[in-house]
C-alpha cells in the first residue's frame, strides 16, 4: 500500500517565513516532499498548518524563503502562478463550490477556461471523475442541493479535473457531519493509493496512520516533529506532540 519512493523532490520549501502584520505565522519552515508522497500535517489550531499549505499554491504570499514546485519557483509572476496552480489542486474545508453553477459546470470550468479543452471532452472527463467519487447521477444539480459529504466529493472531483500532480487538502472533513466523514476519506484513500502527491491538513489520525508516508506536527508556526506513522504515534519525542496526541487520541 505505502510505497517507499526514491523519486525526486516535487516540492522544496526552504527557510519559509510568513507574517500577518506583526504576527509571525510561519517560522523557518523547511520541508521537502517527494513525488507520490502522502504527507499529513497536524497540530493545534492556529499553528500555521493551513497557512503552510496555502503558501504552496500561493493563495498566501510569504515574505522570506523560497518554495519550488516541480522545479518552478513561486514568485509574484502571474504566469508562473497560473502554471503552478494548474499542477497543484486544492480542496477546502468549506468546499467552496461555485453555487451558481451546476455540478458538471463546476467541474468543467477550469478545463475549458484554463486548459482550453473542448466542452465535450471536458464533460466526458468530468462525468468519469464524478463516477469515481460516486455521484455521477447528481451532475446536473446545484451544489446546495447536495449533502456536505457529497459537496466535498464534488470538490475533490473538481480539483482532479485539471489532472494535477499535487493535491492539497485543507481540513477536508472538519466541516462535515460525522456520518459523512468516511465517504470523503474513502475517496482520499483511493487517491492516495493511485500515487498522486498529497499534503493533507487533517486531524483524522486513522487516515494518517493508514496512508501517510510522513506525519508532520506543527505548533506555533514551526514544524516541531516529523516522523513515519508508526513512530509518530508511539515514540513522540517532544512534550508538545505527546500532549497533542493525548488530547486527540483519548476520544
Amino acid at each position, binding site marked *: 500500500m505505502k510505497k517507499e519512493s526514491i523519486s525526486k523532490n516535487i516540492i522544496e520549501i526552504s527557510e519559509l517565513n510568513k507574517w500577518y502584520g506583526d504576527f509571525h505565522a510561519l517560522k523557518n519552515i523547511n520541508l521537502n516532499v517527494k513525488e507520490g508522497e502522502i504527507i499529513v500535517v497536524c497540530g493545534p489550531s492556529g499553528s500555521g498548518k493551513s497557512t503552510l499549505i496555502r503558501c504552496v499554491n500561493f493563495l498566501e504570499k510569504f515574505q522570506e524563503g523560497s518554495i519550488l514546485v516541480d522545479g518552478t519557483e513561486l514568485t509574484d509572476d*502571474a504566469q508562473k502562478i*497560473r502554471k503552478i496552480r494548474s499542477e497543484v*489542486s486544492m480542496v477546502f474545508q468549506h468546499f467552496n463550490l461555485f453555487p451558481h453553477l451546476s455540478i458538471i459546470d463546476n467541474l468543467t*470550468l477550469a478545463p475549458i477556461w*484554463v486548459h482550453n479543452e473542448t466542452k465535450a471532452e471536458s464533460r466526458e472527463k468530468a462525468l468519469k471523475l464524478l463516477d469515481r467519487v460516486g455521484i455521477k447521477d447528481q451532475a446536473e444539480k*446545484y451544489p446546495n442541493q447536495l449533502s456536505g459529504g457529497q459537496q466535498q466529493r464534488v470538490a475533490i472531483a*473538481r480539483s482532479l479535473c485539471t489532472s494535477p500532480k499535487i493535491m492539497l487538502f485543507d481540513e477536508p472533513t472538519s466541516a462535515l457531519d460525522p456520518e459523512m466523514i468516511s465517504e470523503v476519506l474513502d475517496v482520499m484513500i483511493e487517491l492516495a493509493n493511485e500515487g498522486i502527491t498529497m499534503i493533507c491538513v487533517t486531524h483524522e489520525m486513522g487516515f494518517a496512520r493508514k496512508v501517510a508516508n510522513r506525519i508532520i506536527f506543527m505548533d506555533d508556526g514551526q514544524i516541531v516533529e516529523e516522523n513515519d506513522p508508526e513512530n509518530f504515534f508511539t515514540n513522540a519525542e517532544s512534550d508538545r506532540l505527546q500532549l497533542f496526541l493525548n488530547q486527540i487520541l483519548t476520544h
Partner: protein
Amino acid sequence: MPINELQATRNPPKSQIGALLWIKENLFSTWMNGALTALSLYLLYISVPPLLNWLLISANFNFGTVNIFGFSLQFGEEMATNSNCGRNAACWPFIYEKFDMFIYGFYPREELWRPNTVFALTALLFVAVRLTNNLKHKNRILVGLLISYPVVSYILLLGGFGILPTVETYKLGGLMLTLIIAAVGIIISFPIGILLALGRQSELSTVRFFSVMYIEFIRAVPLITILFMASNVLPLFFDAGVTMDKLVRALIAITLFQAAYMAEVVRGGLQAIPKGQYEAADAIGLSYYQKNILIVLPQALKISIPNIVGSSISLFKDTTLVLIIGLMDFLAVVTGAAADKEWLGRHLEGYVFVAMVLWVMLYTMSRYSKKLELRFNTENKN
C-alpha cells in the same frame, strides 16, 4: 415503557382559523391597536370619497367619438371644452386631447409611426428574450438583438443617414423622452458602474484611488448640480463652433451620475461573496478577468438585483429633473399642455395622469425584479 404509536396529523382547532379571528388578532389585538385601526378608518373615510368623486364620479368623460382600432365608441355628445368641464372635478378630455403631446412631446405628428415602431420593437425585445431561452445559439441571438436594437431605434427616432427625414432632438418629449433618458442612463451606467465597483476593490492603488474619488465626488453632489454643470460647464471645454446637443449633455450627466450609484450597489453585492469563492477561483487557475466574469460577478449581480432595480427606479424618477435644463420630459409637458389657452389651468389633471402612468410603470419594474430574483435563484432551488 410502551412504545408510542405514530400520531395522525390533525387540522388546527376551529378557534385558530377564520376571518373574525384574523380581524381580532390583526386589527384589535390591543387597546392601542384598536385605536389605530379606528383612526385609519376615519382617515380613509375623509380622504377616499372626495378623491373618488374628483377622479371618477363627478369627473367629465365626454371625449366625443373615440376611434380605437376601427371601432367607434361614443363618450358623450361631443368633446367637452375647458369651460363646460367645471372646476370641481377632473376634466379628462384635456388628457385625451393632449395625449399625443404627453407621449411624444413635439415630435412631428405625421411621423408618429416611428416612435410607435420603437415602442413595439421594445415590447418585442422583451418577448424575444423570453422566447430565445431554449434556442441553441441563444447568446449569439441575444447579443445580436441587443446591438441592433439601439441602432435601429436611433435611426427610427432621429432619422438621418439618408434613410428617414431628420428629427431634431429638441422635438423629442413627453413619456418617450423620459423613457429614452431613463433607459440610456440605466443601461450605459451599468457596465461603467461594474468597472468602478471592481476598481474600488482593485489591488492597484491608483485604480482604487480614482474609483473612490469618482464615486464619492458624484455621490456627494445632487443630480441637479450635475445637470447644470453638464448643460453650462461642459460646452466650455469645446471650441466655440462646436455645439453639443442638449439631450446628449443631459444623457452624459445622468449616466455619469447613475454610474456612481450603480458602482456602490454592485460593491454591496461583491462584498457579500465569501472569500472562499475568490480562493477557489484562484486555486483552479482562473485569471483575474475570468475569476470576476465567471465566478464573482454572476453571484454578486444576482444578489444585487433588488438594489439595482431600486436604484434604477429612483433614477427613472430623477430624470424628471431634466426639465430644469429645458428638456420637455413627461412631467414638463404638463406645464406646456396646460398653457394652451383652450385648456388653461388644467395642471392638476396632467399631474395626476403623469403620476398614475409613472406609478404603473415603476410598480411593474419592481414586480419584474422580484421575478428575476426568483428565476436566478439557483442557490436555494430544491
